[in-house]
């Protein structure tokens, strides 16, 4: 009988491919950031498949937003922990942490 509907993974790859021109026009650092967004959305493909939304890209965007919010919450927690410990040296800069 054959598949009658593309899978969530196929939809994701198609959507990612549809942004290839946009990605190509970005600076290298922006390309890497965009790739990270798509990688983040990949973590929720199973949920996207289960959602069976008529517009899959909206679900992928929500998944990206979800991961970004999780990162914001993690950073906020770290900041709060750092602020509540007087006398302690400030936490190292995040960028230098990633470079190191």
């Amino acid at each position, binding site marked *: *009988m*054959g598949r*009658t*509907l*593309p899978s969530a993974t196929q*939809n994701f790859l198609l959507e990612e491919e549809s942004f290839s021109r946009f990605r190509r026009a970005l600076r290298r650092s922006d390309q890497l950031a965009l790739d990270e967004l798509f990688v983040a959305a990949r973590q929720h493909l199973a949920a996207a498949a289960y959602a069976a939304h*008529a*517009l*899959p890209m909206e679900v992928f965007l929500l998944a990206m937003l979800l991961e970004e919010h999780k990162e914001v919450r993690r950073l906020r927690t770290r900041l709060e922990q750092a602020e509540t410990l007087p006398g302690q040296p400030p936490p190292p800069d995040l960028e230098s942490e990633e470079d190191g």
Partner: protein
Amino acid sequence: MPMMIHKMARKRAGLFKLDTALLLTKLMITSAPWDGKVFLLRNDGNHHSPLNSCRSSPTGGIVICRLVHYPESMNLPGFPLSGSLALLIGPHAAQARMLDLAARLAVGGPLRVFDCGNRFNVYPVARAIRSRTADLSQALGRIRLARAFTCYQVMALLEEAADEAVSTLVLDLLATFYDEDVRLPESQRLLRRCLVQLRRLGQAAPVIISARPPKPIVYAERIGLLEALRTAAGAVWEENIKLADFPAEQGPGIQPESPPRLDF
């Protein structure tokens, strides 16, 4: 062209009774991907300048028709009316255009889709609908989809389809008829029965069929099926080719290289 369409619609309105004419109008407006000017035609043959809204007359029949405008190479001068079959031929059975057409029609009213070649992908249709209206779920809900995976199922699908005033799209009608496992005489017999049913369905509302040429391996044997379908259609458009075989406007179409013509 608007005058020609109006005359055709007038013929179908019978005695120009107001209710018949308005019903036909409703079919034409809600079934077609209308875009463009609105012309008002009274039954005395005169047509007025373009209007922005529809009006009815207390006397006689009024037929209102809007020009349809497709972008790119499918700039159709008019939308097929009930009583005729429209045929789109393209390399992939004009899939992209048919899906876009499905989206346009679904925005305006109910739509029936017979997918005979696994061509219907709801995601492009949803995107196209979303670009036209915010009410995505309601528009999608207007689409009734039925799939067939063998030519026998295609025939059964069409025979069991009710006569409804609902536009019908038939995607890749001949896909299963090209199957080498089905003997050619059998394919021809089934296609004949399908064409009868399509004409029946076309009496109530526009029927738009898409098809593709057969693959090279079966081209010589099966091209007659496409030719038979082309003959049965009232209007034929070929993708990436100028308009062909529509009244008052002729254009060249892609012709196969001297295939053997099979009696059908």
